[in-house]
């Protein structure tokens, strides 16, 4: 706006100046022409007047010289000495003439022959020599007007007219001269008519001395140093040129000058008017024009400023706002409410800014939301990882689920995080773990539901699909509860493996619209992790349980066996030992019948004891609580001991016990006690089922194996029955068993012992032909 005004001012000033100057210049030109012509006229006039004056002076002096009075008297003067008589009449004439010719200051006559002033109206000069001046010499030849010169007599600029005085005979006898009164010349020249206030005309002689000028310096006053003057006009005039020009005059003042050379008096005539005066009207005109122009310019400038302000203010507002907006202040608005284009511009601009701000705001909001979402995602993924870790490290549901709910609520700051599990029996849900805001009192035991129960969580459990409730107040399925009164939004996610819903992860927030679809996806992943964790935990629990059950069963079995053992041994102790005591005769001598019965009681007791022991052995073996200790065992010795023991079993029967083992059979690596037990069992069995014949124990070996056989000549058994013989509690002939005793566990136990050695046990048998049982043991120690 200021710029606009400034520009306008500049333009206006230039225009006004130009107009002013042109007006001034035009006027000046006109003035110059008119002044110069005026000067020319004035100069002409002065020149003419001056010339007329000179001519007059010449004429007058010539006339005077030619008057008889003068030439006669002069002739007399030259011829006679009688000046006294001549002079008065001459004097009379010339004084009269002088008087009539006011321009003649001094009229005098110079004798041609002597150069002596014969007569002068100035008596003082009579008799003086006056030949120095040109007027005398020239005057001898004719009428002449001298240059202006410095009068030697009075020291003043002087002009002298001179003319020869001829005698009657025509001889030049004297010169009549008259000094001209330059006052007249001055009057003519210095007259200012038509020259305005400061113009002047003046004369300069060829010596550049002002001879007629207002500023003329009298020679007298100046002494010898008469100043010379110089100017373009003077120079030109002295060069015999006439003309007019603008120049600086002798006084240093710019003037309009007319100059000319006056050939007669040999003077330069200059008529000058100072430019200042001459062009004053032009200047006046210029000033007036400029003044008027400036005034109107000023007025216009103010008007323009005001107008521009009115126009520019809104633009400035808009501009300022634009700058603010550009600087990032999107809340800046242009406060322009006019209805013109500027107003429209401002409003459009404001709308644009508004849109910009909105888009920026929304961009910022979007970035913020996105950032928050990413942070949330990261957090969710972190939680998922943690849950996964927990699920791997924590297999107890009672510990795992509370830690999961705590973790989720801690990380996401939900109002409540619940995990409900499906009750396998009822199909309903029960609250397994809950982590809620501190002031919420939630007892897990109180939360149960049936499959038909309403509510969001049940719905999810039944459908297996996640359900988001953005505002529970708008959700008819939402069950209002006093326990969680502040819930506004809820996300229930199924905890499922495949199609099987194990439970529901329920998240509640006190803010509406908390759960986005992305949340649902991510949290569903979390739920899947939890489901896997639950499944793992359940499997682990089941495994734990079955292991515990197995262990418990085992423990109970052991306990049972121990109890059975104890409870059987206690009465057996009495039975066997009372029978023993009786057989020892502590209560008196027994009859044969009594002794036999007592023996039978003892045998039965011992048998029962054997059963108990075998059962315990088998149980021990089966539970893996039996270890074997390998050592060098000489079979010859072991078999010898076994047969020795067995000899009691075959007492009274025609059975030969044989041992056929090479003496050089090297010892084997075996558990001595177990091997003895196996062989005793085999020999005992043979003894039980053999009525007569022999029982033979053989042994042989190769590089890898040592084989022991126990052969009897007993009742034998069918081939298909052989495997049964090794089974527990199986005896082939119930009747016979009863007769021969045996627990039915011996072979099973023996088989296990042999197998613990890394060996094999098998049998060959024919019904009625007897049986051969083989035990093959590894020579080296590669048994279990």
């Amino acid at each position: 706006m200021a710029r606009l005004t400034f520009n306008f001012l500049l333009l206006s000033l230039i225009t006004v100046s130009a107009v002013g100057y042109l007006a001034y210049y035009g006027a000046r030109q006109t003035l110059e022409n008119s002044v110069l012509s005026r000067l020319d006229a004035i100069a002409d006039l002065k020149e003419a007047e001056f010339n007329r004056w000179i001519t007059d002076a010449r004429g007058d002096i010539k006339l005077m010289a030619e008057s008889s009075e003068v030439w006669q008297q002069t002739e007399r003067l030259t011829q006679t000495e009688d000046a006294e008589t001549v002079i008065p009449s001459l004097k009379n004439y010339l004084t009269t003439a002088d008087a009539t010719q006011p321009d003649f200051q001094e009229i005098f006559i110079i004798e041609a022959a002597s150069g002596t002033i014969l007569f002068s109206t100035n008596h003082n000069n009579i008799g003086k020599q006056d030949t120095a001046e040109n007027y005398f010499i020239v005057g001898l030849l004719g009428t002449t007007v001298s240059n202006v010169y410095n009068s030697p007599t009075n020291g003043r600029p002087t002009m002298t007219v001179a003319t020869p005085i001829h005698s009657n005979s025509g001889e030049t006898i004297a010169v009549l001269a008259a000094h001209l009164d330059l006052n007249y010349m001055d009057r003519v020249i210095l007259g200012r008519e038509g020259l305005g206030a400061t113009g002047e005309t003046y004369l300069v002689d060829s010596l550049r001395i002002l001879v007629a000028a207002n500023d003329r310096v009298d020679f007298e006053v100046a002494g010898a140093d008469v100043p010379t003057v110089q100017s373009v006009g003077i120079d030109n005039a002295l060069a015999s040129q006439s003309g007019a020009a603008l120049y600086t005059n002798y006084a240093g003042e710019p003037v309009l000058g007319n100059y000319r050379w006056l050939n007669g008096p040999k003077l330069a005539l200059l008529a000058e008017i100072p430019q200042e005066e001459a062009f004053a009207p032009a200047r006046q005109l210029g000033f007036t024009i400029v003044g008027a122009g400036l005034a109107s310019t000023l007025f216009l400038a103010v008007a323009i400023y005001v107008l521009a302000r009115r126009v520019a203010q809104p633009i400035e507002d808009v501009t300022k706002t634009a700058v603010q907006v550009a600087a990032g202040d999107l809340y800046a608005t242009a406060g322009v409410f006019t209805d013109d284009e500027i107003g429209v511009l401002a409003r459009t601009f404001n709308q644009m800014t508004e849109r910009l701000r909105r888009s920026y705001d929304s961009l910022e909001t979007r970035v913020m939301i996105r950032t928050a979402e990413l942070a949330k995602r990261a957090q969710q993924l972190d939680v998922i990882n943690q849950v996964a870790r927990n699920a791997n490290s924590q297999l107890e549901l009672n510990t795992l689920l509370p830690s999961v709910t705590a973790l989720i609520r801690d990380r996401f700051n939900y109002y409540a995080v619940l995990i409900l599990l499906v009750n396998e029996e009822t199909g309903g849900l029960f609250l397994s773990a809950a982590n809620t805001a501190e002031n919420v009192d939630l007892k897990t035991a109180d939360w149960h539901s049936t499959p038909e129960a309403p509510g969001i969580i049940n719905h999810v459990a039944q459908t297996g699909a996640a359900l988001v409730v953005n505002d529970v107040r708008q959700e008819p399925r939402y069950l209002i509860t006093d326990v969680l009164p502040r819930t506004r939004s809820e996300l229930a996610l199924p905890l499922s493996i495949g199609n099987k819903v194990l439970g529901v992860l329920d998240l509640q927030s006190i803010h509406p619209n908390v759960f986005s679809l992305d949340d649902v996806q991510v949290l569903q992943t979390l739920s899947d992790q939890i489901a896997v964790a639950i499944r793992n935990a359940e499997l682990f629990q089941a495994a734990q349980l079955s292991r515990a059950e197995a262990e418990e069963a085992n423990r109970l079995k052991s306990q049972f066996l121990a109890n059975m053992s104890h409870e059987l041994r206690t009465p057996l102790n009495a039975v066997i030992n009372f029978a023993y005591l009786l057989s020892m005769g502590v209560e008196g001598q027994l009859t044969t019948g009594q002794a036999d019965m007592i023996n039978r009681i003892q045998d039965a007791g011992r048998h029962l004891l054997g059963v108990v022991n075998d059962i315990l052995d088998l149980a021990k073996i089966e539970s893996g609580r039996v270890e074997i200790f390998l050592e060098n065992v000489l079979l010859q010795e072991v078999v010898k001991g076994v047969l020795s023991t067995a000899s009691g079993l075959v007492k009274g029967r025609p059975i030969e016990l044989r041992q056929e083992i090479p003496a050089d059979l090297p010892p084997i690596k075996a558990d001595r006690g177990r091997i003895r037990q196996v062989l005793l069992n085999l020999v005992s069995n043979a003894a039980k089922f053999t009525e007569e014949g022999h029982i033979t124990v053989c042994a042989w070996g190769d590089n890898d194996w040592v084989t022991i056989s126990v052969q009897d000549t007993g009742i034998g058994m069918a081939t298909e029955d052989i495997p049964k013989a090794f089974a527990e509690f199986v005896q082939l002939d119930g009747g016979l068993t009863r007769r021969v005793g045996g627990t039915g566990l011996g072979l099973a136990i023996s088989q296990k012992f042999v197998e613990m050695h890394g060996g094999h046990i098998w049998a060959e048998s024919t019904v009625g032909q007897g049986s051969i049982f083989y035990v093959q043991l590894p020579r080296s120690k590669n048994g279990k």
Partner: protein
Amino acid sequence: MKTVSEARILVVEDDENNRLVAVKLLELAGALISNIFATASDPLPYLQTMLPQGVDLILLDLQLPGRDGYEILKDLRGHPKFAHTLVVVLTANVMQQDVERVRAAGFDGFIGKPINGPRFKEWIQRILAGESVWTAVS
């Protein structure tokens, strides 16, 4: 060191049959009937009141009403008078873990039930001679 005939022996056994079996077997082994004592429960009060001079050997059942065999052993070992009495377990608890527990508890011997009558005398003799006898299964 006393022989069977010299030794004073206390049988602690709650089952009457077994108490009688033990007593009779000791008798058969050579112990004097006047030196054989028997009680059905905690022997300490019995010892303190009836046998203040103590006995040479105590045959102790583990499962007793009131204090069990282990507690009784602890009481005896802690008693100034009876601390050095030989205490041999006579029990039907012949499982491996029972034997180990008895051994760890500091008993002087272990005789499992049913008692091997024919060998009983020898064991008593050895026990009285200061030998250790462990016969879980006879």
